[in-house]
């Protein structure tokens, strides 16, 4: 099931709607990294609210996506990790190190706005 990617100003927002297979996750990573260049995006938000399980493969793919996007000049925020999913992730030892997470879409946007403002000021 493909994940719809919404372009909003300088950001790309991907909302996962249902359980994803490994192939769906790989395609999402590829599409986002490509679109960061295509739309000159400064931020990527991946909303995982509807994701049933975050196992080692999903966590690794999202971590890689965040690192790849950063190399292309965009910050990534993972939003909507549910409490039970967070619990399972910690038990599995998946900490998503080096990846920013926020409670929900609103918090994710606030984070990106702050980050991109800082960057503009630094110029």
């Amino acid at each position, binding site marked *: 099931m493909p994940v719809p990617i919404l372009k909003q100003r300088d950001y790309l927002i991907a909302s996962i709607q249902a359980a994803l*297979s490994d192939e769906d996750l790989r395609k999402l990573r590829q599409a986002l990294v490509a679109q960061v260049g295509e739309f000159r995006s400064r931020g990527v938000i991946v909303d995982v609210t509807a994701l049933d399980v975050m196992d080692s493969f999903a966590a690794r793919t999202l971590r890689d996506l965040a690192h790849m996007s950063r190399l292309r000049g965009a910050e990534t925020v993972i939003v909507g990790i549910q409490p*039970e999913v967070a619990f399972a992730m910690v038990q599995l*030892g998946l900490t998503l190190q080096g990846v920013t997470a926020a409670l929900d879409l609103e918090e994710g946007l606030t984070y990106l706005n702050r980050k991109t403002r800082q960057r503009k000021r630094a110029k």
Partner: protein
Amino acid sequence: MRDEARDLAEETVVPIKVDSDIVTARQQGRALASLVGFSATDATLIATAISELARNIVLYATRGEIALTAVENGGRPGVIVVARDKGPGIPDLRRATAGGYSTSGGLGLGLAGVRRLMDEFEIVSEVGTGTTVTARKWKQ
């Protein structure tokens, strides 16, 4: 609830061959866990363990199956997850079930993680014959 659990004493077998089967297996596992009365959190732990076990089959053995059974032990409901494959087997079991070991570019947490997610964990593996992992979780 009881009767449903007893009805489900038969194994549900999900064949594992391609990566979409991983999703099917963990969804069936979650449904079974909820049916026997596990909380949403425990059902997610079980579904996550199934996801890891099913992925190991796709990655290392190409095909196998996940068998799910609802059980009861002295009035306490539980779920048994058995992951079977006829793959190459695991040469160094101790290393494979310790954290940090992986030959597939994963995070190397697979089996050690499954052990933490479930209450009981057994693994039998023979090189050239295959691997069977049995994991159980009991309702708190």
